């Protein structure tokens, strides 16, 4: 497979009165053509900021990409002019957000919002754009597409609006779609519909997908590979099977253990990670997970562990990674 996107040492910071927030602190990963990569982690760990950084949509000020490279089809997006970057956003990379209501324009009809993209980026005529819009709405499972073109976003349910967002994302025939919590606001039933739709369409069109989520089930169902983030860093990465069946970072382990599961016997008690994620404006020298970690050793307080290979394709940022067994218990 050819590499489509290659992120190297990306660093994004916010310069606030409370100090410098290291929202994304040196992350690297790749996305191949047609592949689905998940970014998972708890709120505030830098998932959205890392996605916005790819598209250069981080609000500046207070935010700034301060380091790294974002190579898309070989070109470093961080070196492009604003104009070139707009073209990338219109033609190559599309984004789908959690709350479609805020990304759809409330005073424009659904039809206008889709045809605008088609006319602007693909230079279609009115009739061509209209016909294509109807086709796209049909593809995303919206009934009576012709009639829907005249409707406004508030006429639609949350699930329907997200379908429209996907239609708009697909309109410019992108090579990569970044979906930031696309189903977090939806019911499980609608979530399943939308994710299945995205999976089928990305396959059909050969589009790569970065799906950002905090839902471990969603990752397991849809992702080829997964990046687990904590405090602005990727702390574990690998195939979904490797990461779930053989987690090599205590945080991943803890996350997996803290969700009740429908397929396992009911536990008497959940086993949560205690404490809370750190303040990204006040990170110390050691591993940011150390205060919550059950496997921490003395070295963890001094040195932040780099992301290192455990087995080919599976990486972990933990000094104790080889002492974590597949069952998730430390070797005593």
């Amino acid at each position: 497979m050819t590499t489509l996107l290659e992120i190297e040492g990306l660093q994004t910071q916010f310069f606030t009165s409370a100090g410098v927030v290291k929202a994304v602190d040196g992350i690297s990963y790749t996305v191949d053509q047609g592949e689905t990569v998940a970014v998972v982690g708890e709120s505030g760990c830098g998932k959205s900021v890392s996605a916005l950084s790819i598209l250069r949509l981080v609000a500046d000020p207070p935010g700034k990409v301060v380091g790294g490279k974002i190579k898309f089809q070989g070109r470093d997006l961080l070196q492009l002019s604003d104009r070139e970057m707009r073209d990338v956003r219109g033609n190559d990379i599309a984004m789908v957000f959690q709350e479609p209501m805020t990304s759809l324009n409330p005073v424009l009809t659904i039809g206008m919002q889709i045809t605008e993209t088609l006319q602007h980026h693909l230079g279609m005529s009115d009739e061509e754009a209209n016909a294509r819009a109807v086709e796209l709405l049909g593809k995303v499972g919206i009934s009576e597409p012709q009639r829907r073109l005249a409707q406004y976003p508030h006429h639609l349910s949350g699930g329907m609006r997200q379908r429209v967002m996907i239609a708009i994302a697909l309109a410019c025939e992108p090579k990569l779609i970044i979906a930031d919590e696309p189903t977090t606001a939806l019911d499980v039933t609608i979530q399943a519909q939308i994710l299945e739709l995205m999976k089928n369409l990305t396959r059909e069109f050969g589009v790569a997908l970065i799906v950002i989520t905090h839902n471990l089930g969603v990752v397991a169902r849809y992702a080829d590979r997964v990046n687990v983030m904590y405090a602005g860093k990727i702390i574990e990465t690998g195939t979904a099977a490797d990461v779930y069946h053989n987690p090599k970072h205590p945080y991943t382990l803890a996350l997996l253990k803290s969700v009740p599961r429908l397929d396992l016997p009911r536990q008497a008690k959940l086993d949560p990670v205690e404490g809370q994620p750190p303040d990204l404006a006040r990170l110390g020298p050691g591993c940011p997970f150390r205060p919550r970690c059950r496997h921490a050793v003395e070295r963890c307080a001094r040195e932040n562990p780099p992301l290192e290979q455990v087995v080919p394709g599976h990486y972990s940022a933990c000094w104790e990674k080889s002492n974590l067994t597949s069952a998730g218990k430390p070797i005593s």
Partner: protein
Amino acid sequence: MSEATAIRKSEATPTPQPGLQENLIEVRNLKMHFPVTEGIIIPKVVAHVKAVDGITFSIKKGETLGLVGESGCGKTTTGRCILQLEKPTAGDILYNGVNLNGLGNKEMSPYRQKIQVIFQDPYSSLNPRMKIREILSEPMRVHNIVPDSHARDKRVLELLNVVGLTPRFADRYPHEMSGGQRQRIGIARALAMNPEFIVCDEAVSALDVSIQAQVINLLEDLRDEFGLTYLFIAHDLSVVRHLCHRVAVMYLGKMVELADCDELFDNPMHPYTRALLDAVPIPDPTIESGRQHKIIKGEIPSPINPPSGCVFHPRCGLAVDGCSKAVPEFKELRPGHWVACTEV
């Protein structure tokens, strides 16, 4: 569900509750129809939103009843009716045998203390200008639960301790806390009233998984320690299975299934319950790749004009001709297992 994901029999059951025989809450044929009006000068009622449309259930002392279903099916409205925040269109709500619907403000007062609520979004329900100390002590003063101000201060610290927060949080404002910490304050505020019964309306839904697990454990500990009874409203079925003794499934204002927790998850009967369970992704890629997903079509229709007959029939894979005509009876198909479907 496919074989791979057939839910396995549970080994652990929630702590059996002593004296589980007595009903604390009885809800009988509850209906809450909100009028839809048109016209500004002389508003005219043109239709009704049938948010809750004739549901009956009870909750025993010490029991946790889960209430699940897609958004808009009437869960919150049911909770609000029990809390007497809505005046039901029809039906009765009995607390310890006393019909709350008939009570005047004064007679209702002791029940307003015994029945508490924890909301999804603690932020919007906490006064941003008050310190945590005031947020917790104010209701104790108003309801004369702890009349002495020194005793109240002491009680605030006790409550913080119970919900796992250090005393220094007493001097913080809500915006100076994380979501998980604010949810603990929401819980502490409910506990301040010495409640017997708590409606938890999506109380853990907005929390991150590690924090959610902490709060679930806290709710369990408090239930055991204070003998609390919960109505646990949630859309996350795995959380409901973990925490509840019995589970009720709602669809478009109706109850479609009600059973003991293990029975419901091991042997779901209503096609809607099965569809809900099928939609939950399991956090295991191997299981997921072997699973056959029969994804439910369509969306929950408007409660203004609900479908005829069985309200679920337009989305149902089992529906036959009769389903669009007759409303299915809510029947006890196995001991304690109630289902409203003619096709199972």
